[in-house]
């Protein structure tokens, strides 16, 4: 499926200030920026009747956090019907179309919490399909991301049940390494011996 590059809209998130960052204003393609990688890419899944945001490192959230003044790329995809990603304060709207990869790129220039609204009729509870966009200074954003990264890491000690047959010996023994005084080198050699058999 083709990527809709024309969907790239860049706009200031501060309509009241009307002081956009250089080069970020206007609608349509932004050929000068198309080749530069964004500062942050977030996968956005739209479904009846919710938004799900997936950050790098598998951080999943129900609200969109973006760092202030950074170039953000959203990869939008719809799970069921057409939705539309609308942040009224950003003056930004992009339909999320099933079967077509859609992108939206913007720089938020004013910290705050803004509503995210679905703007395309998507079923009975279309009006309830709302979420929030939180624009925060980069440090705050990084802290939020780190916190959620920890929360989303599967901690082994909290694992209730694993099937040992599915684990490699190294993985299986890793939790016991401290207890038995086995270091990484020993584990690696053990693993290689094991796999040679």
């Amino acid at each position, binding site marked *: 499926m083709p990527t809709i590059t*024309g969907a790239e*809209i860049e706009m200031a998130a501060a309509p009241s200030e009307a002081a956009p960052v250089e080069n970020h204003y206007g609608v349509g393609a932004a050929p000068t920026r198309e080749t530069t990688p964004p500062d942050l890419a977030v996968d956005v899944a739209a479904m009846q009747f919710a938004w799900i945001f997936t950050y790098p490192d598998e951080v999943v959230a129900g609200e969109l956090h973006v760092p202030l003044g950074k170039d953000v790329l959203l990869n939008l995809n719809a799970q069921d019907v057409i939705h539309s990603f609308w942040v009224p304060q950003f003056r930004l709207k992009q339909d999320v179309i*099933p079967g077509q990869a859609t992108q939206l790129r913007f720089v938020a220039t004013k910290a705050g919490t803004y509503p995210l609204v679905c703007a395309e009729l998507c079923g009975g509870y*279309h009006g309830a399909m709302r979420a929030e966009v939180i624009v925060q200074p980069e440090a705050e954003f990084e802290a939020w991301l780190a916190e959620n990264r920890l929360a989303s890491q599967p901690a082994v000690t909290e694992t209730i049940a694993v099937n040992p047959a599915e684990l490699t010996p190294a993985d299986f023994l890793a939790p016991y390494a401290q207890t038995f005084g086995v270091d990484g080198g020993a584990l690696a050699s053990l693993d290689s011996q094991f796999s040679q058999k």
Partner: protein
Amino acid sequence: MTQTQLPGQAAAPVTAPETAPPKAWKWYDYFTFNTDHKVIGIQYLVTSFIFYLIGGLMAVAMRAELYSADADLLDPNLYNAFLTNHGTIMIFLWIVPAAIGGFGNYLIPLMIGAKDMAFPNLNALAFWLNPPAGALLLGSFFFGGSQSGWTAYPPLSLITANAAQSMWILAIVLVGTSSILGSVNFVVTLLKMRVPGMQWTQLPLFCWSMLATSVLALLSTPVLAAGLILLLFDINFGTGFFRPEMGGDVVIYQHLFWFYSHPAVYLMILPIFGIMSEVIPVHARKPIFGYKAIAYSSLAICCVGLFVWVHHMFTSGTPPWMRMFFTVSTLIVAVPTGVKIFSWIATLWGGKLRLNSAMLFAIGLLSMFVIGGITGVTLGTAPFDIHVHDTYYVVGHFHYVLFGGSVFGIYAGIYHWFPKMTGRMLNETWGRIHFALTFIGTHLTFLPMHELGLQGMPRRVAMYDPQFEFVNQICTFGSILLGISVIPLFINVIWSWSQGPLAGRNPWRALTLEWQTTSPPSIENFEETPVLWTGPYEYGIDLLSADGNKSVQELLGEVSVEAQ
């Protein structure tokens, strides 16, 4: 009803007198398959008015739901069924049949001095496709009602209330077919059946606008039918034209849909422009300003209107060149529309205005349509549209155009031609009350919606952010006022139809041909082929010579010599 007897048929028995058409239609003739264009016109008007009331009740129910931010009055799926069918009924079973089917059928043969339309049977057939379509839409509520909006975008329309959605598609295909049959009829009638000597430049402007409307309908309606049939196949027969999981493309549907449905906006407003061009000069007692400009601007709207449809899809991932192209083409539509607006204002300027109900609605339309037109220009501009697309700003805009425009125009037409259709005058006082209620109600309901959209309220929602509650309550009160505003019209029409003062042939002293016959016109319109003795809008010009002693027969003889 004489027929040329061919030599070989001379012995054929003469048709018995009892099969000859009656002198006047009885009330029950209006419920039958009748080929008289006047009967069909009134059938269209009355049927569509019933659907107007049904669609209006749905609107009031929705506004009642939106009185509070939560979905507490209606089930959200029923709300969606109401919004879908409100839009569908108001477009396909009220404005289009009333403006095109109703006024078009009733007026065109009279205005061009013909006995009937070119294809009377086709005409009756076209009308009788409408009641089953209406029945299908209303019947679909037993299956939950179609819930995917009047746009019926897949995939939502493919997965929601399949039976009701299929009935909805069949209903639209029926009225679309009706529209195509009607349009063929209008075009042929206008081309071939004008009274001898009627030049194109002597054609009443309503006929010009109906010509543009018909051409537009003929070019665009089949595309919608194609899109909807594909959708019907996707729902019922396992095809995947618009199913993304089967490699279908949902955006193609949007192109097919809007290729018809944007011109549909002009289908709903061009006949109204025609009504305006008739009502304003008669009641301003002045020749119309810029006859040719108005006539050709209808054709210009018809042409440009075919190339603006993507402005409904600026957020659907359209590439930048398309946004650019369709922004420009959309803004161009404002030019011929502005030509008309200025021409009407220039016609009013310095006129001897008769501020009766018809004229009040016509002037009300002017003010409303200017607001709707300006917001339309803003919406046609891609950068602005990206913010307000699918919001209440759009809802406010198109209700100014379709309610403040089309419905006001239909009202103006009813007050203007009711005396011709029934032979009786409507009550002026109740007409003015009707106007005042409608005018205030329209602004109260639809003006605040612009603010709602700009501030971030999407359309087609049963529940919304509580910060918008107050403004929504204003809209709800306005809609109740609009609901009440229909009552004076309803009573006025019912009462005046049998009890109103007799109108005579030409109560407005108008010059177009429909006023030169009896009210209501006899079954074949004119006792004898009318003679065109003046242009359609030569008001305020002294037509009598100074001595003025000639008899009518002498005058008619003179003009018929001139016409040849």
